[in-house]
């Protein structure tokens, strides 16, 4: 089911002129995100926070330390 879905949607994304990037790295559901400028910060149920460059799609930082899942982001990033 999952493989089938991945195949189906992947094909669609290639045709979609609006799709830019697929950011992978989290090991569980992405529950919250905040972005400003070219910096994106995402929080996941994998208890990690990742900092991305949304122009290049690279994950610049992985913030670890939380031992429980959290989902709140302050929107006021210092970029």
């Amino acid at each position: 089911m999952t493989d089938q879905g991945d195949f189906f949607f992947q094909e669609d994304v290639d045709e979609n002129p609006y799709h830019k990037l697929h950011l992978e790295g989290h090991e569980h559901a992405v529950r919250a995100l905040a972005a400003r400028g070219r910096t994106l910060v995402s929080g996941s149920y994998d208890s990690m926070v990742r900092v991305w460059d949304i122009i290049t799609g690279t994950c610049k930082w992985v913030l670890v330390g939380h031992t429980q899942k959290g989902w709140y982001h302050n929107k006021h990033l210092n970029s």
Partner: protein
Amino acid sequence: MTRIPSVVTTTTTTTTYAPIPLPVLPTPSTPHDPQKYPLLNAQLPPSFRHFPLVFPNGSRATFHDTDEGDDLLQEEEFIGGKGWRLVKSDDGAGPSKSVGLIEAVERFARKRSYDNDGMMQGIETITESTSHTPPPRKKAKAAPVLPKLSTVNGAAPPSPLPSPHGSPPPPNIWPSAPPSGASSPQPQLPIQPDASLATLMSLPALVSHFSGLPVQLQSHLLITLLRHSPLPVLRTVHSVLTPILARDFLTLLPPELVSHVLNFLPFNCIARASRVSKSWRAIIDSDPVLWRDLLKSEKLWFGGDSERAFAEALIRRRRRAGLPHPNDLSLANPYKVLFKSRYLTRTRWINNAEPKHLAFPAHGRSVVTCLLLSKGRIISASDDHSIHVYSPVTGLLLRSLSGHEGGVWALASTKDTLVSGSTDRTVRIWDLSTGRCTHVFGGHTSTVRCLAIVKPEWVDVEDEHGNVRKEKWPKRPLIVTGSRDHSLRVWDLPRPGEPEYRFDGADEADIDPADVCCFFKLVPEFL
């Protein structure tokens, strides 16, 4: 000037009437009613009643308004040294005496006739023939004044003017008429129309005589006339004088002085003043010091960097919009815009005497998952697959956006564009002005649980050499979505009018039952 000779001719004609003895002009009743003659008992400044005069022949005198009588004497003593010093200096300068209104006016009249002999051919005739008429004219116009004024005039010369007896005898009306001279006046003839006609005709002579008087005498004469003018006349004079003499000090003074003056006013006065005229509005709105101080005095200055940041953001926005330079007077200073915003916020939230509470049902028994308050709309998303748009004023449902095939768990909006994420794994773009779903993005393989719109803005970017410079990122607005499929996706935010897009499976109901179960399980946790 060209008109004067023609008037002169008329005046000369008038003088030919002079020999005909005129009836006594009816003495107007002396005005007593302060309602009708508001200025009659008005307190005049001492400079109107008492000032030094220099006559054309060089002789000096001190003018006394004898109208005041005993009051004047008291006042002089009351004023004390200053008033006395003035008189003394006159005494020291030469032979000085006290003159009254009539003598003063008359002596200037003589002077004018001498002067005009050699100077102005055009007016010569008037002054020659009517050299002594101006006082009578005055008499005719302000008859009630003169008797009073001349009462204490001890040093009065052989004046052609009416004696203090109130109702002067006929010969005194036309004292300078050459043929009759001082000869015995003929008996009065009842030719009423001529009296008024003569007064009217000699008006030019009166005016030319008047304009030859020194400013102080002119003022005194006019004030005397005004004091005996009834209210309607004063109103007319006032309506003519006031606009002519009015000066708009805010537009005439240098800006820094204007700013200083305005700084003394409290906010409510400033607000009223800015409604006086467009120029006042522009001056007040563009004054940065004024609004900065008002922010502080009204306790609306939050400090930190908030005010400067607001001002810079507004200036940037104006520059982008191609508006005039920030120092342009036609634009309100950013501090004024900020003051207005904060002041209204305070008055509406804190000082709101009648706060309104509005409650209305939405989405039945389903969970309301997201809520936006934007551009006069309340936008709510629900577990029931729908997105509703309500009016914040009435609570009425304005639009229901349907299309998602699962619960809607993420919302973001900018202007009229709404972006939503759902358990149906899709991201949908809506045009809030029409309610139409314009784009459906597929790609995530599980619930789209969070999303954000990223707008271009200037950010500090550090290059490999450690130099920091400002760059604008992203280049166009983006959507970032986060999903239960462990991944994030970045999309361009479709601009209004850009081609619509729906991925192939958009219309197929394809909800992962596991997802639905999963989020029902999660709901208590989220709430």
